[in-house]
């Protein structure tokens, strides 16, 4: 398979040599792939703007084709499917939330070339939503993180107790136990969760935007805090872009 074609979202770019870039892609059929885009930093490049972060593209790649499947593929052609980059970069809160979406997606795909179609579709959906300005950027990010964790097998328990299953409502959120816990199973240091905060997380999980959009900033901050702690606990290492996310609600469209 020297040449193959796939759809992809550009997660990250790094400079390489004089005018090239290494692009990290989340593809529809081949999972996370790293490839070299040659000459894209020159001003006259044919597809420089298409292999920027946030872009949804249709690519032709030349496979590295070595024995262990490592090594870098080469991007030979690129067509734009969704130019989300421009609309996202034009608004700073969208940009910071979007970067955290990309970093989360990159970190949740531990193995290269392992197909993860559901995560791919989720990333495309999140970027489209950010670019269209449908909802508050940081809420889109929280919804993405919750659903991406669920796809990866880390869905937080938000109804009953995560340890014994006793039906809620419970008021303590323990990241190590996997979600809400009852009074008996509450470990020391578990975070307090208000009913409103839990309701918001449930709404974000299920895509109930009618309820999520109108929520108060205080509740949103609480939910975002729990989501961020839960994500970073499972990733075992902090997400670099998370501390730059703008949590302000002033720029809601």
């Amino acid at each position: 398979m020297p040449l193959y074609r796939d759809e992809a979202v550009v997660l990250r770019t790094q400079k390489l040599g004089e005018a090239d870039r290494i692009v990290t892609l989340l593809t529809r059929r081949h999972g996370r792939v790293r490839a070299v885009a040659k000459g894209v930093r020159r001003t006259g490049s044919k597809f420089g703007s298409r292999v920027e972060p946030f872009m949804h593209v249709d690519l032709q790649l030349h496979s590295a084709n070595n024995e262990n499947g490592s090594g870098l593929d080469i991007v030979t052609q690129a067509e734009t499917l969704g130019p989300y980059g421009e609309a996202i970069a034009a608004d700073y809160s969208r940009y910071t939330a979007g970067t955290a979406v990309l970093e989360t997606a990159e970190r949740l795909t531990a193995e290269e070339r392992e197909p993860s179609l559901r995560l791919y579709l989720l990333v495309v959906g999140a970027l489209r939503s950010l670019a269209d300005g449908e909802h508050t950027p940081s809420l889109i990010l929280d919804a993405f993180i919750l659903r991406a964790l669920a796809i990866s097998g880390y869905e937080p328990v938000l109804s009953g107790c995560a340890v014994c299953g006793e039906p809620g409502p419970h008021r303590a959120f323990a990241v190590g136990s996997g979600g809400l816990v009852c009074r008996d199973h509450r470990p020391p240091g578990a975070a307090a969760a208000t009913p409103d905060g839990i309701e918001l997380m449930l709404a974000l999980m299920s895509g109930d935007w009618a309820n999520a959009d109108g929520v108060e900033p205080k509740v949103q901050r609480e939910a975002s805090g729990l989501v961020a702690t839960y994500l970073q606990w499972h990733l075992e290492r902090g997400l670099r872009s998370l501390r730059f996310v703008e949590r302000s609600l002033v720029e809601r469209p």
Partner: protein
Amino acid sequence: MYEGPVQDLIDELGRLPGVGPKSAQRIAFFLLAADPVDVRRLIDALTEVKDKVKFCSICGNVAEDDQCRICRDERRDLTVICVVEEPKDVVAIERTREFRGRYHVLGGAISPIEGVGPDDLRIRELMMRLADGTVTELILATDPNLEGEATATYLARMVKEMGITVTRLASGLPVGGDLEYADEVTLGRAFEGRRAYSS
């Protein structure tokens, strides 16, 4: 593997950007065979660049003194500041001979994924320069890539209330190229930024 000093030199040269092990070896042997005077000149240039070159206290460009040549030049327009990412960009714009104002070098672009936020760049210094009211126009000349656009968006939002005209360098078709090869984003920008033709 070579003996002591030669191998040390190869290792050091190999750490430079774009220099692989083979090139490092070639440069090392070139230096070994070169005239001692030429090598001495190279050594002096290297020590001097580390000892003498500082960053301008006003704009952040590379300078030999406390201030760079451009900030010291009184003939330059004080009312216009052009914001760029790197000192290399100052040189690129200077080559055009189109711009007579002064610069501000940020030292990079906002890139949360690399852990670079607004506080890691020289944005506070820029705000201090704008505070006294002499500057009437701010030209955002960050790179026309995603990080550069986001940085420009951030800066434009910061100075919105200050009553300063904020402009962004135009993006569009490269001179000497073919229209059919332009990508959608660039061509779209070129349309957006088209101007009346005066003959």
